């Protein structure tokens, strides 16, 4: 049975991977340019994932795990303690992730067959339909490979492949300079995070001699990291922080968040797949996997503050956006911040819960926005939309459901997970009153989320059309585009996750399986942390009911306000805007000056002068002194030999052998730099041999 | 397999007949002479006759019919003619290389015969790396072609020689990879082992029948091998090095007399060699379907000497040579069927099709071998039906 599961897990990765290879090689010649191949492959993966999930469900216990490890490279025969093991690990987290990723990816592939139809054509004419699907396949394979890894090594490999795919897909419209720049920006920014991840992993391997999750958890509990320090901080802190920096880059947390909004230059299915449902989740997944290290090394407060701050300030930015995809991009940032915040306060399974629910509804939101954009002939500005409710009924319904989910309306999945996060944050603040700022971040963001998401709905679907030309042409999208929306929207009801209709605590339908995500995914055991975890659980339970009431109130206020401003237009948006202080407006318009800071300050003021200094040093010192100086020395030598010739030889041994010696000296010195490779080689050989022969003497 | 053994290249068959009393060196020389003179030379010569007959058949002519019955001795008279012809060397030719090059070709194509397993008891040198050895010696041919072409001081020759060398070097890659997948299946490079594994499956699960039917990839592989081997022997449709309508006679334009004879002979020897290797590694060597020739025992003996190896050997050699001659006939048949390729088409075929496909096949074969623990389709079928 276990072997079969492992085989299935491998098949999940291999199917899209082989689809990628086939697409790359012969994709153009296949019927329909091979989109069915990628879609079919990922659907096969979905079926496999479903089988694995069913197995997990039938077992239904927190410690269910199936893993198999192979030795990749074993150099212990040469007395080098280097043994690299790679393997597959299936536990509740990865089984759930696999199902989520394959489901989202399948639906997004299906959606892409409709959305990318304009790109259908021969590659010779510049159409890249096949490339698009092959990249999607490669990306999905990498994400799935990351999920089934049982060690940080293959996880890192898949991580980097995803970085590459992200680069390729963001810059898919490569004729657009903005897209090309955005792809480069995304790649370079995540690279900063990857450096941290890499350092963290190296440090971990140096101490533990293993990359496997199990070994890491066991190492933490057995005190392998207890007395180690790296550059003055404890090893666990260093490793945890390094790996968390990787997450910061990949999941676009403050201060490396700048790439995600720009990444919206890519095609919308890509935004849905990569920048909402899966790749950015990979960062969260990494935190989940390294969670014991963060807890043990004391990195969690940093995690919590970065998450909290990100979710707060991204929400503010989202309020001011008019590009429909940008709104969603910032909301993604904000929701990722929520997850990081949840993990930071120590709510392990809650963070994972929100990861899953968010991936589902955000994929749906992105695809719905894609459908809107497609119907509006690639118009993305919300100010030109409006009144689309009648034109796109299915899209509207799905988008409304998922918007309610993200805003935290009771009965939808976002309510359940977000409510738990808020509860945990509040409980955490009860335990540690000095961290009350986090509570403010969390609740303020909840209100703003409801506000800006309904702003999007009202501006897009309500009111009167602003652009009649586009409006008249708009029509409901074809089945392969609305079907994915419908499926994901159906999964945005919280009954799927918590087993109750309204949210938490009432009407348990699934019996023991109710709130299965929380039940199945307790944090890995860490020595000495049980008491604080228990305390948090208690505190969160204690504030459960107030939290729920507050969060419903807050979300309701946000929706109401949004309706007043953008739905019924009772309050003028322009007037409202004028109330904002000027400097805040300016800061938001400039995205808090982050890009400005990175480009003007970090790169231009810091790196460029540094490299200029380097160049100057190279020019002045190395070139002038070392290189040209050698010429001077040589010339001096020649001059000296000339003087010697004149004075000593010519003067002393006028007609004897005197004529030959300086000539030979001059020639041999000059020939040191005659540019002839054979001469150099000969000098090297002779010198080596002399050194060798007289090694006793020298 | 050591150098000492290699030099004394044991011929199992002769050793069996004469015992081991005589010094090994005599055996080795004897076996070399037997292989060369008694097999390769006459068969190579006979092939020229056969080729002319086949050609005549295809063109509805009679072909050679004067010398001997049915013109069977034609090749003999051809040989005499070649020996007696004036051995001319053009004035600007590079004499040293000119004299030396044909023997390189000769060494390449005839030396490899030592590793061909004609029967379970008759193999020139039962090397551990038999198939690899055959390919290594085969690589001398391209050198001989190139040098001979250059030394004759003739631009047609030079063009032909360049084409020949480029072609042989290129096609060595798909050929080698096709052979590599056979090695993957059998886990050995020893010719004897390679053939022995292709017996009809027995109850104990021994033998997986002819490699060409081992798995779907191997069928493709056989065709790749066959195509590449055609190009290696400069046979139509890959006879660009001696394309008579473009290059007079290509790399051997200037050669005459027995030197030309060596080239011509070794070309046929090459064809036979590749047919032999194809037979041995893909078509099961001496094995026939449904039973194992090695189990035949008529109980005949002369005194102490058991005659059954001899009888088996005769049968095996018959089966082996039958398969070889079928392949050789296909080669001749192709000559009168397919037109010659252009140079760019030739290279495209190799680099864009054969090499990628052969790599794909290699991976496929490796996966098959791993997944089914090396069992062939036939064995799997047998297991499924419960026969074995």
């Amino acid at each position: 049975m276990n072997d079969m599961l492992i085989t299935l897990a491998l098949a999940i990765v291999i199917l899209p991977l082989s689809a990628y290879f086939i697409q790359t090689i012969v994709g153009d010649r296949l019927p329909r340019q091979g989109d069915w191949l990628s879609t079919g492959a990922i659907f096969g993966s979905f079926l496999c994932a479903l089988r694995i999930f069913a197995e997990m469900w039938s077992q239904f216990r927190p410690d269910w795990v199936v893993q198999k490890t192979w030795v990749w490279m074993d150099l212990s025969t040469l007395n080098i303690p280097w043994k690299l093991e790679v393997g597959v690990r299936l536990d509740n987290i990865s089984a759930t992730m696999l199902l989520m990723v394959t489901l989202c990816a399948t639906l997004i592939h299906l959606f892409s067959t409709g959305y990318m139809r304009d790109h259908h054509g021969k590659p010779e004419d510049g159409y890249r339909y096949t490339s698009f699907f092959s990249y999607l396949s490669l990306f999905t394979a990498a994400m799935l490979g990351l999920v089934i890894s049982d060690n940080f090594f293959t996880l890192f490999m898949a991580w980097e492949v995803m970085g590459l795919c992200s680069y390729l897909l963001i810059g898919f419209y490569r004729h657009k300079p903005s897209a090309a720049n955005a792809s480069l920006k995304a790649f370079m920014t995540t690279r900063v995070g990857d450096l941290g991840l890499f350092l963290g992993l190296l440090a971990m391997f140096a101490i533990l001699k293993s990359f496997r999750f199990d070994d890491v958890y066991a190492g933490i509990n057995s005190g392998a990291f207890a007395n180690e320090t790296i550059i003055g901080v404890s090893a666990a802190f260093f490793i945890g922080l390094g790996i968390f920096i990787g997450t910061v880059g990949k999941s676009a947390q403050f201060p490396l968040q700048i790439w995600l909004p720009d990444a919206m230059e890519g095609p919308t299915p890509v935004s849905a797949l990569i920048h909402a449902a899966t790749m950015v989740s990979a960062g969260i997944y990494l935190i989940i996997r390294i969670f014991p290290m963060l807890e043990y090394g004391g990195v969690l407060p940093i995690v919590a503050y970065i998450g909290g701050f990100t979710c707060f300030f991204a929400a503010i930015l989202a309020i001011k956006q008019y590009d429909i995809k940008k709104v969603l991009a910032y909301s993604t940032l904000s929701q990722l911040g929520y997850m990081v915040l949840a993990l930071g306060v120590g709510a392990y399974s809650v963070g994972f819960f929100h990861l899953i629910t968010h991936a589902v509804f955000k994929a749906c939101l992105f695809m719905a926005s894609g459908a809107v954009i497609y119907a509006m002939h690639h118009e993305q500005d919300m100010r030109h939309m409006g009144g689309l409710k009648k034109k796109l009924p299915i899209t509207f319904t799905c988008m409304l459901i998922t918007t309610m989910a993200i805003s935290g309306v009771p009965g939808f999945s976002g309510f359940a997970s977000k409510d738990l996060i808020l509860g945990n944050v509040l409980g955490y603040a009860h335990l540690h009153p000095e961290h009350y700022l986090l509570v403010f971040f969390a609740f303020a963001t909840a209100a703003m989320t409801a506000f800006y998401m309904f702003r999007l709905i009202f501006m897009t679907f309500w009111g009167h059309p602003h652009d009649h030309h586009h409006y008249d042409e708009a029509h409901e999208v074809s089945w392969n585009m609305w079907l994915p929306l419908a499926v994901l929207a159906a999964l945005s009801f919280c009954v799927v996750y918590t087993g109750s209709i309204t949210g938490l605590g009432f009407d348990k339908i699934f019996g023991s399986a109710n709130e299965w995500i929380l039940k199945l995914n307790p944090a890995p055991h860490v020595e000495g942390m049980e008491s604080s975890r228990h305390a948090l659980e208690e505190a969160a339970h204690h504030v459960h009911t107030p939290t729920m009431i507050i969060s419903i109130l807050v979300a309701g206020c946000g929706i109401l306000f949004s309706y007043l401003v953008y739905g019924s237009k009772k309050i003028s948006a322009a007037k409202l805007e004028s109330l904002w202080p000027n400097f805040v407006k300016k800061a938001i318009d400039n995205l808090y000056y982050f890009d400005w800071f990175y480009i003007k300050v970090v790169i231009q003021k810091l790196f460029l002068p540094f490299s200029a200094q380097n160049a100057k040093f190279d020019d002045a010192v190395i070139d002038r002194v070392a290189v040209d100086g050698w010429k001077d020395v040589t010339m001096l030598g020649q001059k000296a030999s000339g003087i010697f010739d004149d004075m000593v030889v010519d003067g002393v041994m006028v007609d004897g052998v005197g004529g030959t010696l300086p000539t030979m000296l001059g020639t041999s010195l000059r020939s040191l730099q005659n540019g002839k490779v054979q001469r150099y080689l000969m000098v090297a050989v002779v010198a080596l041999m002399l050194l060798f022969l007289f090694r006793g003497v020298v | 397999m050591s150098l000492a053994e290699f030099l004394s290249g044991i011929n199992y068959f002769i050793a069996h007949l004469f015992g081991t009393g005589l010094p090994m060196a005599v055996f080795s020389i004897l076996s070399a002479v037997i292989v060369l003179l008694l097999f390769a030379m006459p068969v190579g010569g006979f092939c020229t006759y056969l080729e002319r007959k086949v050609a005549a058949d295809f063109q509805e002519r009679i072909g050679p019919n004067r010398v001997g019955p049915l013109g069977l001795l034609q090749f003999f008279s051809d040989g005499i003619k070649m020996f007696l012809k004036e051995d001319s060397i053009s004035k600007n030719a590079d004499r040293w290389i000119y004299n030396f090059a044909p023997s390189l070709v000769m060494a390449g194509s005839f030396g490899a015969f030592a590793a061909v397993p004609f029967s379970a008891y008759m193999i020139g040198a039962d090397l551990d790396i038999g198939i690899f050895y055959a390919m290594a010696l085969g690589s001398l041919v391209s050198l001989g072609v190139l040098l001979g072409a250059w030394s004759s001081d003739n631009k047609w020759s030079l063009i032909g020689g360049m084409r020949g060398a480029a072609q042989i070097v290129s096609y060595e890659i798909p050929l080698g990879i096709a052979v590599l997948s056979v090695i993957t299946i059998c886990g050995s490079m020893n010719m004897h082992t390679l053939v022995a594994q292709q017996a009809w499956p027995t109850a104990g699960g021994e033998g997986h029948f002819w490699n060409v039917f081992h798995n779907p990839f191997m069928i493709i592989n056989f065709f790749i091998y066959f195509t590449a081997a055609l190009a290696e022997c400069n046979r139509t449709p890959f006879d660009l090095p001696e394309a008579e309508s473009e290059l007079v006679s290509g790399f051997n334009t200037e050669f005459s007399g027995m030197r030309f004879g060596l080239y011509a002979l070794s070309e046929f020897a090459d064809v036979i060699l590749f047919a032999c290797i194809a037979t041995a590694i893909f078509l099961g060597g001496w094995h026939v379907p449904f039973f194992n020739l090695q189990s035949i025992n008529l109980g005949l003996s002369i005194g102490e000497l058991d005659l059954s190896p001899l009888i088996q050997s005769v049968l095996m050699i018959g089966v082996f040579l039958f398969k070889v001659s079928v392949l050789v006939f296909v080669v001749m048949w192709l000559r009168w069927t397919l037109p010659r390729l252009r140079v760019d088409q030739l290279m495209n075929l190799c680099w864009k099709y054969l090499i990628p496909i052969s790599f794909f096949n290699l991976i496929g074969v490796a996966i098959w071998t791993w997944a089914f623990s090396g069992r062939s389709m036939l064995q799997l079928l047998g297991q499924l039906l419960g026969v074995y």
Partner: protein
Amino acid sequence: MTLADIFVAFCFLLGGAAAFFTAFHPNILYAAISLIGSLVAVAGLYGALGADFLAAAQLIIYVGGILIVILFAVMMSEDIYKRRFFEGAKKYIFPVLAAALVFGGLAKVTLDADWSVATKPDFEPTARAMGWALVGPYALVFQYVVVLLAGLIGAVIIARPATKMQKFTDDEGDN
């Protein structure tokens, strides 16, 4: 004085003489051809030392591959019909001295050393053992060798005619 001794002595003589011609023959083509002699002699010595796989590999890669490529390069680049291009005895003076220095020094070290602990070559098949070594202790090195494939790709790019490369980059720039 066994057969193997005669064979080894023959290989020494052949290899040495061929190496001499490779170094000193005025005609580069003859030098290349006499290189065959050295390579074949080394292959024979591999055989005599019981390295059968290496002997065959030496033949197939050096003689069948590298030498052909060398001959191609000679024929395509030099004016080979100019039969003699005498390189001048003068140019040989210092190299020969340097080589003599190397030879003398290393030969002295070789002959001074104590080689009394010696084993006989065993003529076991080596291919299987080498295969295991490549996936055993040398796995890492073997994987790095695969990286050398990059070298081949680089060679292809270098050998491409310059004009075509220019065109290629121009095309890219337009996008």
